[in-house]
Structures are given as C-alpha cells and as structure tokens.
C-alpha cells in the first residue's frame, strides 16, 4: 500500500538556479500561483460589474469583504481598517489554498510547515513592528500584565515572554497540523478502500466522503482562525492593553 504521507512529498520539476539560489519549480509553487490567479480573477471579475443589484459573483465577493470587515471591526476596532488589504489578502489566500487543495490531484500548500511558518512569522513580526512603531519602548509593557504586584515581576515577565513567543509557533503549527492531518486521514481511508474487498471496502470509502465534507468546514475554520488571531495580535499591538479586557 502507498505511504499515506506520499501526497505531501515535493519533487522539483527540474533544476533551475538563479544567482546560486535554488529556484526550481514544484507542485506547491505552481499551486500557489494557481491560487493567486483564482483569487485575483474571482475578485476582479466580481468587482467589474458593480451593480446596485449585485450579480451572484458580486454578492459572494461582498459577503466575503463584509465578513472580513466585521472580523477586523470586532477584534481591532476602527483603527484596524488600515490593515484591511493585508488581512483580506491573507484570509483569501489561506482559504483558497485550503479549499483548492481538497480537489484531488492538486496540492495543499498550507500542509507545508515552511509556508505556514512564513505567514506566522511575518504576521507576528508585523505586530511587533507596529507595536514598537506606535508606542516606542512602552510596547514592552505588553510583557507585564496589568495589576501585577512588583515582587511577582521576575516570574511574570518570563511567562509572558514565553506566551508571546508561543504565538507564531501556535499559528504555524495549527494550520499546518490541521491540513496535514485531514489529508493523511483521507489518504489512509482511500488506501483501505482500495486494498479491501468491495464487500467491506465501501465502508472506508463512505467515510472518505463524510471526511471530505468535514475537511471543507475545517478549511474555512482554519483560515478564519488564522485571520482572527492575526487581528487579535495586531489589535494587542495597537491598543497595548490586550490583557486589560481579561482583567474583569
């Protein structure tokens, strides 16, 4: 039987190097380009008409934009609308990577931890830069939860530091692990369906259909969580009292 992790292996199509860097193409790179084209094409066509009574595509785009806007307003507030283009791009890219990866024969880019880690580090780095840019050195106050007595500081600061550093890791691992796990389960079930006689084999096959439905939900939820946590981290950096709301 095939190794269930086989679908995650990447092989370059050929050797290609530029200035000593390995820039050979593989399935994941091509898939990212496909996702970019699909997202951009979808939104550009949707926005082309701009009718008062929207077409189906336009209302889908409006729904998406409204959803992302609501997410930002809920977690950051009005200040966050500056980041709308970035957050919308992030959400749509991850969502379509997850969704298009479910089509058999394609590749789920978000099942590579290098991709999710790059996103997570960039998002976290951006929140740190925004925080220091807005508040200067006072941004370090994020390491001190409000209402901490002075003698607890030597304990609380390391704990807060760890919980800050855990943010990019948990962002990256969550998306990567969920995508990889879902596809591995599908691969195992398909392998069982193929290797068993039809009399029993239909059972794992039926399960693959159910799991595929679940995977669509997971694809949405993981994109949603990644984006909402991006908003939360940016919001913490902007308002600087991310912990204040937990005090009551």
């Amino acid at each position, binding site marked *: 039987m095939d190794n269930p992790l086989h679908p995650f292996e990447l092989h370059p199509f050929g050797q290609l190097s530029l200035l000593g860097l390995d820039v050979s193409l593989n399935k994941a790179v091509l898939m990212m380009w496909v996702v970019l084209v699909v997202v951009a094409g979808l939104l550009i066509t949707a926005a082309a008409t701009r009718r008062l009574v929207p077409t189906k595509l336009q209302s889908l785009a409006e729904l998406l934009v409204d959803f992302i806007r609501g997410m930002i307003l809920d977690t950051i507030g009005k200040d966050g609308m500056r980041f709308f283009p970035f957050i919308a791009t992030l959400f749509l890219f991850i969502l379509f990577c997850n969704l298009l990866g479910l089509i058999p024969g394609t590749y789920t880019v978000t099942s590579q931890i290098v991709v999710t880690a790059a996103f997570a580090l960039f998002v976290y780095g951006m929140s740190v830069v925004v925080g220091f840019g807005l508040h200067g050195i006072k941004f370090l106050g994020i390491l001190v939860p409000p209402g901490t007595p002075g003698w607890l500081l030597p304990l609380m600061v390391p704990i807060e530091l*760890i*919980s800050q550093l*855990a943010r990019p*890791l948990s962002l990256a691992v*969550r998306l990567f692990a969920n995508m990889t796990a879902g596809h591995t389960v599908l691969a195992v079930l398909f392998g069982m369906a193929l290797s068993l006689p039809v009399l029993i084999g239909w059972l794992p096959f039926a399960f693959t259909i159910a799991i595929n439905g679940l995977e669509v939900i997971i694809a949405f*939820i993981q994109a*949603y969580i990644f984006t*909402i*946590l991006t908003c939360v981290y940016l919001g913490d950096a902007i308002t600087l009292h991310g912990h204040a709301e*937990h005090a009551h």
Partner: protein
Amino acid sequence: MPPSNDPFYAGLGQAVRIGTELLAALMVGGGLGWLADTYLFSSGPWGLVVGLILGAIAGIMNAYRAAQRWSS
C-alpha cells in the same frame, strides 16, 4: 462561510484553537530552557525543567485568556 455569529462554528474554532495554544507555549518554554542549557550555561537539566514549568504556566494562561475572550 462560517458566519462569526454562528455559535457552532465559533465554538469549533475556539476548541481547535485552545489545544495548540497549550502545546505551543510548552514547546517554546522547553525549547528556550534547553537552548539555555546547551549553549549558554551548560547547567544540566535545570534550564529545561524550569523552562518546561514556565511554558506550562504560560500555556495554561494563554488557554485561559482565549476562553475568557470568547466568553465575554
């Protein structure tokens, strides 16, 4: 589209989130402790032990905060 006001999807999202929150802080804490042991002080297992304990506390605090944010 999971609408953010649908309690089922919001709850599912939270459930998925909190698990990794615990794990990530533990990994970072242990990792920092191990790094301090190996490259800074060569202080035996103590950096790892302290790091894991701090990481566990940080993880529980993160999970608690995530739950608080949701319930408010």
